[in-house]
């Protein structure tokens, strides 16, 4: 049996955990067909851990949905498989290539895979008739996200209208939707990047190995370090260098940069992040850098 809390105080991490578990249970109780959008990144793994806690010892009362960009890191896919097997969860993988073949998405050669995830995701939600989709978004990530509700209503087209958001009071969530609409649910809304890492550390949560410092051939491009691979080859004067790096986010490998690091365990990562002076998206996500309003635009279209 765990300790008695003599002072009846919950640490902020325990409060966040309790709030997230409450959200998972509320959605499972009120929605007909929820799904958890699983990217394989640390935030979606933390969601999985919280969902595991919310329904233990029962299995998750909803499947996972992953959008496969075809450009995922192998390490991310193998961690995903390990989680799915341990939880006995059901996973639906929607691929961008299939979405292109089905005409949901057009590959014009200029659009990033990240952007093409939108059509793929919306196609999969509609095809399966999901009424609620858990996402790992956090309000601390970006200015537009700061105004997102925990329950974020999406219309028939899967779009977010920031001016039509429902007021969200106390912990009373309103899950009413019409046929064809769905709700995005963000159980990690109040977590910060540092909270996520503390939780991974405390709970000893399995995450993809590329989050930890390792040696890798990289190219510096537009101020980002990109991993050498079939899609990333040196251009012009670019040099291939061997560096100790880690990834702070694990999206599409052609868009996701890494940072120099010596942090090989979670404690060391927490130390590095605590002194980091650049937000995780700004540093390593090429697709967020186009404009200050980049995220707002993608969210309106139905991005995670």
């Amino acid at each position: 049996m765990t300790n008695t809390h003599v002072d009846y105080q919950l640490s902020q991490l325990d409060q966040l955990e309790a709030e997230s578990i409450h959200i998972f249970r509320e959605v499972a109780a009120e929605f007909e067909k929820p799904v958890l959008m699983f990217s394989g990144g640390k935030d979606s793994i933390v969601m999985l851990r919280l969902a595991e806690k919310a329904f233990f010892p029962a299995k998750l009362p909803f499947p996972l949905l992953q959008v496969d960009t075809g450009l995922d890191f192998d390490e991310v896919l193998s961690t995903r498989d390990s989680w799915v097997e341990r939880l006995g969860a059901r996973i639906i993988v929607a691929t961008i290539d299939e979405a292109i073949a089905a005409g949901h998405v057009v590959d014009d050669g200029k659009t990033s895979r990240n952007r093409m995830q939108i059509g793929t995701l919306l196609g999969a939600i509609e095809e399966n008739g999901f009424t609620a989709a858990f996402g790992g978004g956090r309000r601390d990530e970006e200015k537009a996200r700061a105004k997102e509700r925990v329950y974020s209503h999406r219309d028939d087209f899967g779009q977010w209208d920031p001016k039509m958001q429902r007021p969200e009071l106390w912990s009373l969530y309103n899950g009413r939707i019409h046929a064809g609409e769905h709700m995005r649910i963000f159980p990690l809304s109040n977590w910060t990047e540092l909270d996520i890492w503390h939780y991974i550390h405390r709970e000893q949560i399995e995450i993809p190995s590329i989050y930890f410092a390792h040696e890798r051939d990289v190219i510096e491009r537009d101020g980002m370090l990109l991993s050498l691979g079939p899609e990333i080859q040196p251009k012009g004067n670019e040099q291939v260098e061997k560096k100790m790096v880690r990834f702070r986010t694990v999206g599409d490998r052609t868009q996701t940069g890494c940072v120099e690091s010596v942090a090989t365990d979670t404690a060391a990562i927490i130390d590095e992040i605590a002194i980091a002076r650049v937000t995780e998206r700004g540093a390593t996500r090429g697709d967020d850098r186009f404009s200050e309003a980049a995220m707002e635009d993608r969210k309106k279209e139905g991005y995670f």
Partner: protein
Amino acid sequence: MASTPQTSDSHTMAQGEMDLLRFATAGSVDDGKSTLIGRLLLDSKSIFEDQLEAVESTSQSKGYDYTDLALLTDGLRSEREQGITIDVAYRYFATPTRKFIIADTPGHIQYTRNMVTGASTADLGLVLVDARQGLTEQSRRHAVLLSLLRVPHLVLAINKMDLVDWSQEVYEKIHKEFTQFATKLNIPDLEVIPISALQGDNVVNRSENTPWYSGPTLMHHLEHVHVASDRDLVDTRFPVQYVIRPKSDAYHDFRGYAGQVAGGVLKKGDDIVVLPSGMPSKIAKVELFDQEVAEAFPPMSVTVHLEDDVDVSRGDMIARPKNAPKPSQDIDAMICWMTNEPLKPRQKLAIKHTTRTGRAMVKDIQYRLDVNTLHRDQDTKELGLNEIGRVQLRTTVPLLCDPYSKNRTTGSFILIDEVTGVTVGAGMING
């Protein structure tokens, strides 16, 4: 449950164990609220380089000769274009002792609903006034709303003190005026702090310009205000949210009632009663994930097992036999109305209270409260957008409720339009 850190050579490891303060800010653009939040984020080193660079370049392109910290928090493009804040935004920062969640709400009259939303989860309310203006109708209204929402701690920050030559007289005058006004409200704890958000005086660092002020800086107060005792640890309230029945071979007979503790303490051996049925039982054990816990208290999310095989489902509540809310279908509440179409007698709505959902009909609108004067307008026939009034409801299902003044979770509800599905009202139960 908690694993031992692999290495703990850094003070940053303590962050996971620190506590949490949720506070709501109120004030208009002119009061310098966004600047103050920008200042808190900047001085607590919660702003990152790229965020600051973006704001600096925007400030430059707008032709400002200073970095406009307000740009850090004005999130949506439509707001940036209009230069106003239109919705509740949540911000996060941490100091070595506390993590803070700010519900940043706009101050304009038409956005009362946002203020009520932001205050609903706040432990503390921060009201900003411009030292040159003194108390305005708007700052009074903010205080009324924070009081109505039973936010237990209030800070009145008198901003732009630099523009009144750091006058103690100005500070004392506003302080006195506010204290007099506050006697009509329910504000258990008040702190009045003279600041300059633009220059940072008394925000994080103590100002040399206010030698006559001996109180805390804003940040010091936020870090040290005691919020743990604001929770009700006496009256046990456990709304059942979800019934966990694995139906697997390993857990064949497992039947756990999952939920978040809304009040009191639950432990093994406690005599309980299940509402509304009134069936008695005892707590067999309380679990958090795969661990049994000795006690559960607010706001823990746990799973409760009972000794008897009684019928319990979502929407029921576990309480103590001699301390249980009385199920009631007649609800007397203060309602904040949040949509254009006014609330009228005989109107039917969906109601959500704890984990219970039903329908409600408006029996009577007793009065409309003028949040500026506290005058009760008894002649009113309806409640318009952003109006607050005392309303009698009749519900289809009995609610297991407490007065809002006793418990902010079991005393609150939302009203939902059955056609549009939109949240149109927020209710606080009287009693």
